């Protein structure tokens, strides 16, 4: 067993005026994840350290953290890779802190809902739609977002302006728009076209780099810039119904 110093950002809403840092010495084996390091602290050293976790296999999206300044899932990174340390663990950037490493996710949930992430249109009465593997491929990549919020922590634009719809929500919007079973593109174009929609993105691309699931939100946003431009010019040619 080796030992690594883990420096955690601490913040208690009732007793701290500002966040502070507390360091813990954590013995670890080579197969221990950063999440297991936090669990060790909680079980053995300090039960008040607060963080979220659940599946511990990188599919539930609970344990997004800043690890030495980089947005990461705690469960799929290993203490050995930060040795000799120290490892600095902070809550995800750009979100208000509820306590310690737990952030307030409510702004993201509102944005998720704003893109109408459900199939719009009349489905078949019975049975299923037909969808070929090729049609599935059109959107499948974008359906793999686990809502871990690493991309928001990576997004400089969201850091400057939290009105920006942001990478994961725009990728989800694109996931439905690109689905052959959906007919809701026009309804969602208002979100796309808005100042805080795709045009808020300044194309840094760090969101895609940190995505643990290869969703590539930057690509989704850019495809929608093209859509938004087309939509803008089409409006002069054929005014939209109800617009």
């Amino acid at each position, binding site marked *: 067993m080796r030992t690594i110093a883990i420096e955690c950002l601490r913040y208690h809403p009732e007793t701290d005026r500002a966040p502070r840092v507390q360091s813990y010495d954590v013995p670890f084996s080579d197969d221990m994840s950063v999440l297991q390091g936090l669990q060790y602290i909680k079980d053995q050293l300090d039960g008040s350290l607060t963080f979220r976790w659940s599946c511990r296999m990188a599919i*539930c999206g609970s344990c997004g953290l800043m690890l030495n300044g980089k947005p990461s899932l705690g469960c799929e990174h290993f203490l050995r890779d930060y040795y000799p340390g120290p490892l600095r663990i902070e809550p995800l950037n750009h979100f208000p802190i509820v306590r310690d490493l737990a952030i307030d996710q409510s702004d993201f949930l509102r944005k998720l809902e704003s893109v109408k992430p459900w199939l719009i249109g009349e489905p078949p009465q019975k049975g299923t739609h037909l969808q070929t593997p090729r049609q599935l491929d059109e959107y499948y990549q974008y359906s793999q977002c686990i809502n871990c919020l690493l991309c928001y922590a990576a997004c400089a634009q969201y850091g400057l302006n939290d009105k920006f719809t942001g990478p994961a929500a725009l990728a989800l919007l694109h996931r439905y728009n690109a689905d052959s079973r959906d007919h809701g593109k026009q309804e969602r174009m208002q979100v796309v076209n808005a100042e805080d929609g795709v045009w808020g993105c300044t194309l840094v691309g760090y969101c895609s780099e940190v995505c643990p699931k290869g969703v590539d939100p930057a690509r989704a946003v850019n495809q929608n810039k093209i859509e938004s431009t087309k939509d803008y010019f089409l409006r002069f040619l054929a005014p939209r119904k109800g617009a």
Partner: protein
Amino acid sequence: MQRVHADVVVIGAGGAGLRAAIAAAERDPKLRVALMSKVLPMRSHTVAAEGGAAGVTRDEDSLEHHFHDTVSGGDWLCDQDVVDYFVAHCTEELEQLERWGCPWSRRPDGHVNTRFFGGMTIQRTWFAADRSGFHMLHTLFQTSLKYPQIRRYDEYFCAELIVVDGRARGVLAICIATGELICIEASSVVLATGGAGRVYRQNTNAGTVTGDGMGLAFRAGAPLRDMEFVQWHPTALPGTGILITEACRGEGAILVNKDGYRYLQDYGLGPVDPWPRAKAMELGPRDRLSQAFWHEHRKGRTLDTPQGPVVQLDLRHLGAKKIHERLPLITEAAQTFAGIDTVKQPIPVCPAVHYTMGGIQTNVRCETPLRGLYAAGECASVGIHGANRLGSNSLVEIVVFGRVAGESAAEYVRATPQPVRDLSALAQAPAERLRAMLDRREGERLAVLRDAMRDSMEEGVGIYRTESGIRATCAKLAELRGRYRRGVRLDDTSRPFNTEWLSAIELGFMLEVAEAMAHSALERQESRGAHMRLDYEARDDARFLKHSLAHYGGDGAPRIDHRPVTITKSPPKERHYGGAGKQAVLS
């Protein structure tokens, strides 16, 4: 204390809870539905289910086949009337998910594809790569956003059921962010809180799977049924217990021991050829495969790793293309968590606790014996799994019976309107107990009691059991409950986002649920499905073709009694796997 009114309150927002909330909202759009979960809906453990969901679609398949696979898979402890209802409604629910946008994997012609699963005669498992639960959960969550009458209580921890005059009338919960208590006064309550696998040390389950709903119902007087039946999944990563889906074997992967020998042929699952074929070798049921591992280990034919004994799951012959297309999640997981490239190396695997077949007793309408209380999904025992669940029956169970629970609760509210009632007086005593947990200045560390419970369950109520081993665990659990009552001392005595406090409440549920498992196991003096007794090696239909019921015993041990199993058309026979059979063509 904050008070809120709802018509239906659903506890748990995984697949079953979301489906129940949507069903209640659709059955009566005027109903106020409260959907409460201790985590955001998409964090629920449904997200980690990999393989798929069973529904009859192929021309050569039939509801009869699905019925018989399920009943024999459950070693005849299934309620056959409920299985009939279940198999008849699987496909329509999976189609409904498709119409809501679930990205099921497709055949070249655009129809939904299906794959083989253990214990199933025909390919009937619908799948979305190996992220089936993930896609089902996100589809249900995103679809639920369309219903304004579903009011979510994300990150609220339900700590107590409130019962008035023999009816469930609401819940007492903690708003996690603030630590404030809230009382939801409702006309009906649906429990959809998932399983209890975390009472064991080595398990495939998320940290949230702590048997909360079972504990809530149990304490409120609803019995827990068939709790001795705990499923070990045969293929998990050693140490972490991370799940390596059965879909690997459904796609053709094989299991070999340290000599490279396909050992399953020695345990009534062979012969090896022709391979692959349904219900044989690696496509046998989970109980048989986990039991075979136990024997291989005893014979010294497993491999040793720092995390414990393993056998090898070999996918290499499937080829890189199929592996990446059909099994991307476990390929990623094997790489990250075990450093294994599945295209080039076999995966070291061992059994780990995966699923609780038992749960809160319900009938086919998801009604518990407590009026106004409904249960669905893994927390419930509706009667379809018997002594061993077949893979891909639970992902479809959550939507079939999630819908039933939501509709039943909605109909109950309409048929028997309950007057609004101020429950704050009733909520006072439990609220005081919860607050008092924060004030203890003495007691033991939470992790000490929790780990002792897990070790004792592994030791005495494992894959193979004996009377003396089970008794030792019963005694240990009684001792741990005593120590728990005397006090857990928390480092964190504040209210906002106090996860240590929540873990202590969860531990209280887990100890009682574990006790129900151990005592039910003690009383069942036979071997059936996932319950294997070294001292009673045979199935004993004369004495034990019946359900176990555990009744809450307060601070003491639970009382166990038994109830008949509903047999309609399939009298108990010997369970048969392996043997001669046709080679299957995998799609």
